[in-house]
């Protein structure tokens, strides 16, 4: 084959493939074009405020964690009747979206233990979304970082990359399915707190916020960081909740030095 024949064959192949592709494209039915996120939703930037000074007033309370487990089918594999050995072995499979952790100072041994509520921080620059090879984990235009479980391949890169240890992987199948309106993720996908996006999208409040307000602590609030006095802050009146406009406290975030720009603010972070 000389050069002319090669070029003719190559050009013909490219044209043939192009024609086939164009034919498939024009003959394929497009059911609907994605209408995309409404500008009203896009204008929001969902964040969270956790007032630990209020949370401290109810030691031993676990309303937020239990509400999250019930709403989002987040499974525990440890059982209350387990021996310490069994518990030590099974704890690694437990799933947590929201956690209430007790921290003790190493430097000041006399200092009392502190309680911190940990959730996914829905960072402005989320490492998990950056590393996801298939963009199953992504940051939505309204600021929520969430997982499309149909697309997740279970590589766990996001779990590794989160500096806040907020993400989990479903290592095992679980039968914990209290809320049938919400899917129970199967073994093999990664996930984390998504600020109850399925509720926020329907103008309802996240489960943890609702539970904390009902419990009386009113330590959690979720709302639009672009509009801190606006109506998109849960819990809504008449329920009580912390607000970022409160001048008595200075909001702090976890590991601000990392540059992830987390969107969960704390009052009373030790």
């Amino acid at each position, binding site marked *: 084959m000389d050069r002319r024949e090669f070029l003719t064959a190559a050009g013909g192949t490219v044209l043939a493939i192009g024609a086939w592709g164009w034919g498939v494209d024009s003959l394929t039915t497009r059911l609907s074009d994605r209408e995309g996120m409404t500008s009203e939703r896009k204008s929001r930037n969902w964040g969270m405020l956790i007032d630990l000074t209020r949370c401290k007033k109810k030691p031993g309370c676990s309303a937020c964690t239990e509400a999250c487990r019930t709403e989002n089918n987040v499974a525990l594999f440890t059982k209350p009747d387990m021996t310490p050995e069994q518990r030590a072995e099974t704890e690694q499979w437990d799933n947590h979206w929201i956690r209430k952790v007790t921290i003790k100072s190493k430097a000041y041994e006399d200092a009392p233990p502190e309680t911190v509520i940990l959730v996914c921080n829905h960072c402005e620059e989320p490492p998990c979304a950056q590393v996801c090879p298939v963009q199953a984990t992504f940051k939505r235009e309204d600021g929520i970082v969430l997982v499309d479980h149909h697309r997740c391949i279970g590589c766990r890169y996001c779990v590794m990359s989160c500096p806040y240890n907020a993400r989990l992987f479903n290592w095992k199948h679980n039968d914990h399915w209290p809320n049938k*309106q919400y899917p*129970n993720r199967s073994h093999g996908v990664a996930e984390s707190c998504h600020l109850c996006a399925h509720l*926020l999208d329907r103008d309802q409040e996240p489960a943890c916020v609702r539970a904390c307000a009902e419990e009386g602590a009113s330590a959690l609030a979720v709302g639009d960081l672009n509009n801190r006095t606006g109506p998109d802050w849960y819990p809504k009146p008449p329920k009580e909740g912390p607000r970022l406009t409160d001048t008595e406290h200075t909001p702090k975030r976890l590991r601000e030095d990392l540059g992830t720009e987390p969107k969960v603010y704390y009052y009373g972070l030790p």
Partner: protein
Amino acid sequence: MTTSVAKRRPVIPILVVLLLIPPVYSAVARGASGGRDPSTIPEIEADEGVTCIAPLEKMRFHHMDILKEMRIDGVRDGNRGYKASPDQPRTDYTFENCRECHESRAAFCDRCHLAVNLIPDCFGCHYYEEPGDG
């Protein structure tokens, strides 16, 4: 390149004939209309006057695309529910609404899917209440 001295056989025509046997057989065996085995036709328990969100042919061939669009619109854009076309309002649809007519998965989804042996992995995560469930 030397020309082979072996007997030249019409390989490609023979292959084409062999490959065409399955579709020709199924077309002839089931009749020219490709008549369906009745056991693969789903049972639909629709009330009088209730119509599905989309016409039959669209649902039959594109229900998986409709579900995919609902997922993408809901998860990625926050637009939960179903929108039939750009000029129609968005309805707050979930699987629950499909169940208003299609009450039993065994009589509906599974009949076609088991018959064609194309079993999607929906119900490991999504709940589809059967009529007998508590």
